[in-house]
């Protein structure tokens, strides 16, 4: 039976199953299935997962076994012709003919887009990852969404999303990629705004869709430019014209377009990727997307959708190789976003937002890896994408089960010490945090190490100082990642046990259907990394993608693209351990030390009047503070800093902290050192580093002030303009005859002699004119 199913049917089955699941749930959900409406989805996704595994295994069989690098193997299945306009574009000699099929008489090219699916190693990888994680999330959400009145709607949207994601990954045409790119955007819009009665969720959904649309604006421009320069929009070669990433172009018959246009195309593609993968300029939507249910965050905003941007750049890597400046920009955007997101995650109190910013940060890592534009970089990026999907999904599902237990409270300040109440969640969350921080045996270490090695190699290869700066930023981010991950871990699971009132009676471990996926994911998170790394399986496997095969050729047939660097591994582990230690030091045990440092960080000593109150006992106050800086809300820029940390002055009944003496010493040293270092900031009285980080560097407010506000104002102005100017003009012209008539009316005085006079004047005029005209 295994050999019987051809690759073509498998490829079609993988997206078809989720789609049929979605349709079945949509039709039968509300009336018939209601409570059981998760079955079509779960079965569909499971079957699709099995199909993608079979596909991967069969495809493995088809790869050339001789292990020689540089052979791109792909298979294309065309379903039907979407749009076909013959002789649509005759490229004038000005356009780079080298890029377009050098047809003899420059016969005009056909604008032909057809719905065609492709198989190659990159697609297979992505398919396996997407379907596996979505199955686990589906199983998880059976428990999580239990009792929700939109139950069937959730599952139909979920399977619709998986259909779009699988199609996005398998489609072999830029236009179709754009189609499912927006399809995925719509599904995320529907899922984020799932609890539409909550206005914040609706606004977040709209914001996500619009920011994605801005990204797609760049992607569309890239698409049109590609049509002008390459004369075709499909990846693979068709009989008449060479595809953009087709074999003929790799064989050297046609070259990639470099220079200004090439860079423009790549930058615009990156803009699209930034929109989708929430990189720096367009990252504002991801934290707000946490309004959606947690399985949605786990699946879409951690594992699958946000990686679409990384997949697209990996797919178009040859274009980036031809335009090195663009790759350089990708690297810097990646590193910058990673660092910024790490800094923001430091001070967030909402567990899901911490994880959201960590996702943005890890995606920044992947962009950094891809920005190297070397085979090592790309493989490292994809490897990190693969492993990150598992442990980030694990962390989000863990956070979900915490929320489930705490009655939908996710603000870390309101609960603590949950290791006893939620043992399994605690264990799996620990594994996830270790993996994320990049501690030795787990997969995070291997994939992050691969990226750092790639950057390291590139720094040595090119010797450019910028790569060294990038390496430093990556290391810094690694430290921050380790710190905030364990800060969240300790604040949630350690310290005195506190349960918020909303938890009510069911503050206990989540049901079996929720923690089994957690355990499975934990296993994957732990084992996937080392397994693939030791056997270099991942690198070998990816080499056979057509786009990457070309780079493999260039990198020479060394086989092992990124050798394992001992020095990089040691430094990254040291940094990670330091981060964990600092987090333990600050957030384990009593919070007093934390308050002291907070007091310092927020220049508390500059406005003595404001005595920092006790964070522990100030739960009412915390609530008051919560709404001032509620997660996702816009903190008042000029508001005073939230002094919500217990001050060291008045003693705390829990007795001296673990390290009371060194804490006091450190505080004195810290204050002196810090005041010297932040002298320039001293002037920024009201904007302390803490404030900056907590309110996400005011990016949202800046966008509101710079873009949203002016456009709304312009809208009102143009509406007034339309009513007054254009309409006024039209009515004015319409009113002209009326005014003229009114003036003539006055001459009718009803008086005979006047009429006589008018007749005479008329007669005189006629006589004079006839005389003058001489007719």
């Amino acid at each position: 039976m295994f050999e019987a199913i051809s690759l073509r049917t498998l490829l079609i089955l993988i997206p078809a199953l989720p789609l049929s699941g979605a349709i079945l749930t949509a039709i039968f959900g509300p009336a018939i299935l209601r409570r059981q409406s998760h079955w079509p989805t779960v079965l569909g996704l499971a079957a699709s997962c099995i199909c993608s595994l079979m596909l991967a295994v069969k495809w493995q069989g088809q790869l050339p076994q001789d292990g020689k690098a540089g052979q791109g193997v792909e298979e294309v299945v065309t379903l039907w012709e979407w749009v076909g306009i013959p002789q649509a574009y005759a490229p004038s000699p000005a356009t780079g003919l080298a890029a377009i099929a050098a047809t003899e008489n420059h016969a005009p090219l056909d604008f032909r887009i057809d719905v065609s699916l492709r198989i190659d190693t990159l697609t297979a990888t992505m398919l396996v990852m997407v379907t596996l994680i979505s199955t686990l999330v589906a199983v998880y959400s059976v428990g999580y969404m239990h009792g929700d009145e939109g139950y069937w709607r959730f599952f139909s949207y979920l399977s619709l999303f998986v259909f779009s994601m699988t199609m996005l990954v398998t489609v072999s045409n830029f236009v179709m990629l754009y189609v499912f790119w927006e399809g995925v955007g719509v599904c995320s819009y529907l899922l984020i705004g799932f609890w539409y009665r909550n206005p914040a969720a609706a606004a977040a959904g709209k914001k996500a869709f619009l920011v994605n649309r801005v990204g797609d604006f760049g992607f569309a421009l890239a698409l049109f430019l590609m049509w002008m320069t390459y004369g075709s929009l499909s990846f693979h070669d068709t009989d008449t014209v060479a595809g953009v990433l087709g074999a003929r172009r790799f064989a050297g018959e046609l070259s990639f377009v470099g220079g200004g246009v090439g860079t423009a195309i790549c930058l615009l593609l990156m803009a699209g990727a930034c929109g989708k993968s929430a990189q720096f300029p367009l990252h504002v939507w991801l934290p707000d997307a946490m309004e959606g249910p947690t399985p949605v965050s786990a699946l879409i905003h951690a594992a699958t959708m946000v990686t679409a941007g990384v997949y697209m750049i990996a797919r178009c890597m040859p274009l980036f190789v031809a335009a090195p400046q663009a790759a350089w920009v990708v690297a810097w955007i990646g590193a910058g976003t990673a660092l910024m997101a790490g800094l923001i995650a430091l001070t967030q109190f909402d567990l899901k937002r911490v994880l959201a910013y960590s996702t943005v940060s890890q995606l920044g890592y992947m962009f950094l890896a891809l920005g190297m534009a070397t085979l090592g970089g790309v493989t490292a990026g994809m490897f990190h994408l693969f492993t990150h999907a598992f442990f980030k999904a694990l962390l989000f599902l863990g956070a979900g089960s915490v929320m489930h237990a705490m009655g939908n409270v996710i603000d870390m300040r309101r609960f603590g010490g949950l290791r006893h109440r939620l043992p399994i969640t605690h264990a799996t969350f620990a594994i996830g945090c270790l993996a994320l921080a990049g501690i030795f045996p787990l997969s995070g270490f291997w994939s992050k190490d691969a990226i750092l090695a790639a950057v390291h190699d590139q720094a040595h290869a090119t010797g450019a100082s910028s790569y060294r700066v990038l390496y430093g930023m990556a290391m810094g981010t690694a430290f921050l990642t380790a710190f905030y991950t364990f800060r969240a871990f300790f604040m949630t699971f350690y310290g005195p046990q506190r349960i918020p009132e909303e938890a009510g009676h069911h503050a206990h471990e989540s049901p079996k259907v929720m923690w089994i996926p957690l355990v499975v994911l934990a296993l994957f998170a732990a084992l996937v990394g080392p397994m693939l790394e030791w056997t270099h399986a991942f690198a070998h496997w990816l080499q056979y993608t057509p786009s990457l095969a070309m780079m493999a050729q260039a990198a020479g047939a060394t086989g092992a693209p990124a050798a394992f660097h001992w020095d990089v591994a040691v430094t990254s582990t040291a940094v990670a351990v330091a981060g964990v230690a600092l987090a333990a030091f600050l957030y384990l045990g009593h919070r007093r030390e934390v308050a002291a440092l907070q007091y310092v960080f927020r220049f508390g000593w500059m406005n003595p009047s404001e005595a920092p109150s006790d964070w522990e006992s100030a739960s009412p106050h915390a609530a008051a503070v919560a709404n001032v800086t509620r997660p996702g809300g816009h903190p008042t820029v000029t508001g005073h800093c939230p002094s919500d940390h217990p001050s060291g002055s008045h003693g705390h009944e829990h007795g001296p902290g673990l390290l009371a003496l060194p804490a006091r010493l450190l505080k004195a040293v810290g204050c002196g050192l810090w005041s010297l270092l932040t002298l320039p900031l001293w002037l920024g009285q009201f904007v302390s580093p803490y404030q900056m980080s907590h309110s996400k560097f005011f990016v949202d407010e800046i966008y509101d002030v710079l873009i949203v506000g002016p456009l709304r104002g312009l809208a009102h102005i143009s509406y007034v303009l339309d009513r007054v100017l254009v309409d006024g003009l039209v009515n004015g012209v319409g009113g002209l005859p009326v005014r003229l008539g009114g003036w003539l009316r006055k001459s009718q005085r009803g008086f005979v002699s006047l009429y006589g006079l008018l007749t005479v004047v008329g007669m005189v005029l006629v006589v004079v004119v006839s005389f003058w005209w001489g007719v």
Partner: protein
Amino acid sequence: MARLLLQTLALPFLAALLMPIVARLGDRAVRAWTLLVTLVTLTLTVSLCRGYLQESPGTDGFAVSDVAWLSSHATEMPLVADGATGPGTAIWDIRFHVGLDGLGLWLFALAPVLMLTSILVSWEAIQDRPAWFYGMLLLLQGGCLGVFAARDLILFYVFFEFTLLPLFFLIGIWGSEQREYAATKFFLYTLAGSLFTFLGLLAIVLWHYQQVGVLTFSIPALTAGLTEHPIAPFGLQLAIFLALFAGFAIKVPLFPLHTWLPLAHVQAPTAGSIFLAGVLLKIGTYGFLRFSVPMLPDATAACAPALLWLSVIGILYGALVALAQTDIKRLIAYSSVSHLGFCMLGLFALNRIGSSGSVLQMVNHGISTGALFALVGMLYERYHTREISAWGGLARRLPVLSCFMFLFTFSSIGLPLLNGFAGELLVLVGMFQRAWQGQLAEPFTQLKWIAVLSVVGVVLGAWYMLWLVQRVFFGPLREPHGIHGVPVRDLNWREIAALVPLAVLAFWIGIYPQLFLRPIQPAVDALTHEAQGRWEAVDRPPLADRQAFLLRRSR
């Protein structure tokens, strides 16, 4: 096939004539009769389309029937110049010459579909004098069918003017508060424009008569004649182009001439605005494609940049003003100003992709905006208000209606897998190809700015539609104060039946647009070929010396 076309054209008019008799049998009979007639027309149109697709006649007409209508065989009396006596004895030969071609086919088919929706939507909404209402609607549908099937100039103009009358009464009698003002303004504005158009058309006929010596009003003959003997003096050709532009630009609400549209839409009854948005706005762009572009290629090439600027301004302006609206119907009206800006953009990009995209976009706009107006009509029927601020969280109360609203909102903002995307994509690709046709590194000419700004229009489009959906359908449930106790019920079967055909069409065009593009492409290419040649041959020197060049080149 020709007989089938004649039947389709005649049916609505006959039904309207028989209406007084049916009216005597009571309101229900009137509605049933109109529904029956529309269903029959729909089946006839579907068989016509199937015939066309099977036969795919390319550029020459399909189901053509040509009968002398207003022609006289008077004695030899030269009309214009005494020297050139026409060979034929007939002095004026206006024929009832109807037929379908790629350009008009889908717009022809769109009218009965929207008619079905309009009838089902206004089933209970129209209580006073339904016989007259449905009679007017049938006449309107007949007029629209006639316009797209006419192949004779005068017949086209007759139908072109005829569509105004029923809509005037529809808006004037069954409209809302300011209906008289809106009806008069709409009527006068369009009529003023169409008078100039008539002048332009007659000038074309007379020039053809003078040059070729045969006085004919048939459009294909005129187009062929004018390709061999283009109107040499550029000044005259430009004047005729501007005359035609006046009439058609008002019908397509191009930017400065659009102020009648929001007013007419807001005041029109639901059925009226469905038809107005769905079919009538397309007559303008159809007119440009049928008359201005093929018959006046030099003037089209010279005016194309200016028109492109107007359409881009239309796109951005429509989107921006829609953003600032508080009345839901006015918002959708301004959105159709923006969408038709796309059609004009594709049309005057003057290349194959752009023009076929523009025609497809016309059909898409008809479907999505027609459905949106139907939905707004249903909301108005339930809550009797059009203020967006009056509603909130309706998804809770009306799930099926909000589901359809999502579907057509996504179709209207051009989401892939739905009909809006195919049209918009082709239009934008066409425009880009026109902008980047020359050297790629050419300085950022104005065309490139137009292309980039039009893509911004797509983003703005998404913004105001989603903001509308968010304010009305999401958030806590809030209903206008008017509803006293009676719970508003969701869509009944009749309303769902009104929307399902449009939804099916939306998905069909989204998933398999090639079926619709195959007939459009050859016909539209034949029409724009000449103007495209003029523009590319000139290789786009700045506008001023292009005109000088065209002058020197006049045959």
